[in-house]
């Protein structure tokens, strides 16, 4: 592990259970700045739960989470976002009935905020903020090749574009850390390749650190610099792609024999 | 009423027997307004009121109308027991139907919303049943045909204490209804003043059907008499539930009891109950007998207190118009002030605050019928 870099996300001994089910146990992570790391593992291993714990959807029953050196354990989701973590969802969750542009602008809300009073009297502060938000949103959409869709109702977009929009919305919050939950699900290999390029691009352009969950090995093995493997809530292996691919325990529990 | 008996449509003006005069009298028809709760929770009261007014108008029309043969036409508006609706309704009657007088409305809260409008337009109003003192205080065009709240309670208390020789009484009333609350409070005050003890004083919410909690508590306090200021439909249920809980004492109430349905709902359990009223159907005065007969013939059921008061209110107004000799509001008002009219509910004069001065009667439920018991002068 490269030592000299700043740690963006630090998780110590985090555990969580649902009823009697231990979904995550003793999870540890030191995520350095600027990397793309992956979490893989069989279905129900607890990967999404890790994301939910980091972003404050659930409160861990044990352990500590630090974001950029600040403790965020048990904080409310919106405060965690404010501190710089953004995410996408395994099952896409857009604001379905409103235009694409507004989805992104809502993501921006926390950064530009004229007071309600400004809005009601429509003063200069309000107008400047609106203008800025609109411009930046359009830029962001353009980057995801969605600018032609700005006025469309989000739920009417095809699946692939919805996934891209979700990432754009997450980026609109101006995060330091981006958590992607199965971004390549439902994409064909070609689209996966395009997605891969995009992930690199946004990492560099937005100076992001990325942690992702994925089942498409084609994607994970190529893009992730470091991979953690979970099973039954526990971390059963971690390492670079080649190590993971050849780890007998991972093959047995997760990869199977014939895949890539 | 037998369920199969259809009630005639309320705006039956067209079907009323109107002998068409060959030459229309000068001034044309006289339009009388009636705002009443014709839908909603109090629709049944609105209906009786409307029937009573219609009856009065029809009778006058049959006698050849007013002011030299002018026919009377009733225009109604539904207030849904809502003051806002009442206000809209009365302005409609004033502006579009050009009413010269208003009979109504039933509830004080709505009367209070329409009275200022009528006062401003100088159109006289007689409310048949709004018992709140404030209603007629709105202005000198506003009259009423009923007792104000505290009269009946006082009469009831006197009857309980002196005639029934009761010393311990309790009361149950509808907390959301100013009429029943007012009655119960005045009964309580008067009864205590006479030397009796009020052992329980309980409220129930509007629309309740279950009074067991209050009754259990009241009965446990051992009253000899229960004062029930509710309307007949609640009273029927209350009496039933009280007897089922083992209550053996008297029931006493106000004019809200006056309906043929009281006995139907309450059955044997209301037997022996007493209530104060404006008139008795057994009263042999011709005003009463002709009214009761004609009303029953027309609507297929005996009139209740609301119908009788509405009938009186309308006749008071018609009498005033006749005496005023015109449909001018101020003239009618002046005539109303000097009323001395033999109404169904007694001979009515108005006091300085335009409240009627008239006697109350006590009625007993006997063998499923109303029986005249006593008259109490004011």
């Amino acid at each position, binding site marked *: 592990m490269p030592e000299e870099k700043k740690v963006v996300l630090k998780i110590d001994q985090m555990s969580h259970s649902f009823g009697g089910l231990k979904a995550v146990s003793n999870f540890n992570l030191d995520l350095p700045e600027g990397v793309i790391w992956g979490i893989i593992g069989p279905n129900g291993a607890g990967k999404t739960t890790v994301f939910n714990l980091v972003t404050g959807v659930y409160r861990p029953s044990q352990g500590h989470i630090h974001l950029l050196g600040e403790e965020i354990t048990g904080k409310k989701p919106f405060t965690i976002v404010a501190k710089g973590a953004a995410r996408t969802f395994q099952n896409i969750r857009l604001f379905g009935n409103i235009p694409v542009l507004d989805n992104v602008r809502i993501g921006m809300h926390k950064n530009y905020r004229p007071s309600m009073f400004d809005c009601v009297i429509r003063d200069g502060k309000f107008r400047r903020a609106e203008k800025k938000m609109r411009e930046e949103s359009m830029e962001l959409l353009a980057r995801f090749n969605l600018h032609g869709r700005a006025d469309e109702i989000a739920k009417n977009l095809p699946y692939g574009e919805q996934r891209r929009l979700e990432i754009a919305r997450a980026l609109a919050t101006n995060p330091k850390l981006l958590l992607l939950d199965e971004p390549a699900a439902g994409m064909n290999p070609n689209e996966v390749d395009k997605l891969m390029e995009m992930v690199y691009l946004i990492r560099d352009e937005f100076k992001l650190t990325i942690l992702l969950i994925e089942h498409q090995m084609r994607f994970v093995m190529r893009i992730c610099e470091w991979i953690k493997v979970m099973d039954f809530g526990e971390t059963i292996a971690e390492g670079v792609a080649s190590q993971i691919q050849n780890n007998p325990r991972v093959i047995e529990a997760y990869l199977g024999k014939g895949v890539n | 009423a037998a369920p199969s008996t259809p009630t005639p449509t309320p705006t039956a003006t067209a079907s009323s027997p109107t002998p068409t005069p060959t030459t229309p009298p000068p001034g044309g028809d006289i339009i009388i307004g009636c705002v009443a709760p014709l839908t909603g929770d109090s629709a049944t009261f609105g209906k009786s009121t409307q029937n009573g007014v219609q009856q009065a108008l029809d009778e006058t029309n049959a006698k050849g109308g007013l002011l030299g043969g002018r026919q009377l036409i009733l225009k109604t508006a539904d207030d849904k027991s809502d003051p806002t609706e009442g206000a809209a309704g009365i302005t409609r009657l004033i502006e579009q139907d050009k009413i010269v007088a208003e009979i109504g409305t039933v509830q004080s809260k709505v009367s209070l919303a329409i009275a200022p409008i009528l006062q401003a337009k100088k159109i006289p109003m007689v409310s048949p049943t709004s018992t709140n003192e404030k209603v007629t205080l709105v202005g000198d065009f506003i009259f009423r045909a009923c007792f104000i709240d505290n009269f009946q309670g006082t009469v009831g208390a006197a009857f309980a204490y002196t005639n029934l020789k009761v010393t311990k009484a309790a009361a149950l009333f509808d907390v959301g209804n100013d009429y029943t609350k007012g009655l119960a409070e005045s009964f309580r005050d008067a009864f205590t003043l006479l030397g009796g003890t009020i052992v329980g004083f309980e409220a129930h919410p509007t629309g309740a059907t279950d009074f067991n909690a209050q009754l259990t508590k009241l009965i446990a306090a051992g009253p000899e008499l229960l004062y029930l200021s509710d309307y007949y439909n609640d009273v029927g249920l209350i009496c039933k539930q009280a007897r089922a*809980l083992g209550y053996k004492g008297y029931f006493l109430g106000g004019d809200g009891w006056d309906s043929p349905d009281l006995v139907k709902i309450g059955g044997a359990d209301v037997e022996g109950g007493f209530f104060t009223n404006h008139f008795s159907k057994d009263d042999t005065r011709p005003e009463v007998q002709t009214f009761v007969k004609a009303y029953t013939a027309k609507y297929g059921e005996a009139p209740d207190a609301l119908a009788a008061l509405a009938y009186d209110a309308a006749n008071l107004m018609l009498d005033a118009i006749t005496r005023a000799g015109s449909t001018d509001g101020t003239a009618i008002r002046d005539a109303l002030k000097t009323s001395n009219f033999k109404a169904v509910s007694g001979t009515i004069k108005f006091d300085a605050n335009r409240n009627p001065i008239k006697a109350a009667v006590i009625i007993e439920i006997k063998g499923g019928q109303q029986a005249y018991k006593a008259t109490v002068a004011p």
Partner: protein
Amino acid sequence: MELTTFFQQLINGLQLGAIYALIALGYTMVYGIIRLINFAHADFLMVGAFAVYFFASFILTLTNAIPPIILFILGLIVALVAGALIAELSNRLAYKPLRYKPRLSALITAVGVSMFLEYFFASLPFIGPSFRAFPDLLKPVSFVVGGVYLNNIQLLDIGLAIVLMILLTFIVNRTMMGKAMRAVSQDKDAAKLMGINVERTITFVFLIGGALAGAAGILMAMTYPRIYPNMGILPGLKAFVAAVLGGIGNIPGAMLGGFLLGIAEIYATSYNSLLGEGIAFAILIIVLLVRPQGLLGEKQSEKV
């Protein structure tokens, strides 16, 4: 409070609670499957009561010799059928066209159906807005146990509420139709893919729900023998509160909520009659603050 009074109030509470529970069962069942707060449920109750009223009045004009128990059973059947029919009629005409539309449109339609039934019945010349005395189907028989007054109709209310709750729980949880109903409530398209006839299933729900309303109607009319077109509004509202209190969609919850509310209301009233009116809502709010899903409701933890 004296002990006899205490127990008398408990009986009073159980009886009121039984009425709430009976209405709440239908509410909760329809809600559980269709996700529709069927505001008209309380009016189906009224329709059931009026159907029995006309039926019984008719029979009693023919003969007085009919044994009360037979009359009651016939009346109950009439109530069940009338409730079921009016419910299904509303479903067909008013709710079905909105099946795949925004959920709240159906809710507003339900308010419309409720208003319509109330006003329509009040406007019909042979019904009208007035209060009617409901004939005694069963002769009320009171008995005193240790100073506490009880009667047969109270026992009938309480017994029937429990029996219907058990029956309904069985139907919904154990039978294939019940499982189909729950599947439809989750995802209509997926239910179709399981071979479920969605419309038939929903019809079934309304028939049962309406029959329950009818049953509640006849019992309410027997307990408080005064019927009128708006008779369902207030108890309907309270029963709905009871259903939410117990966890809406949860059948035993509806019964628990009903009884709890009935008892609480009675005791609160006997403590101070002004308290009684708001107590239902106060309890509800407090309970929901502590247990947002209601007493027996499943916690819907959202899977993100």
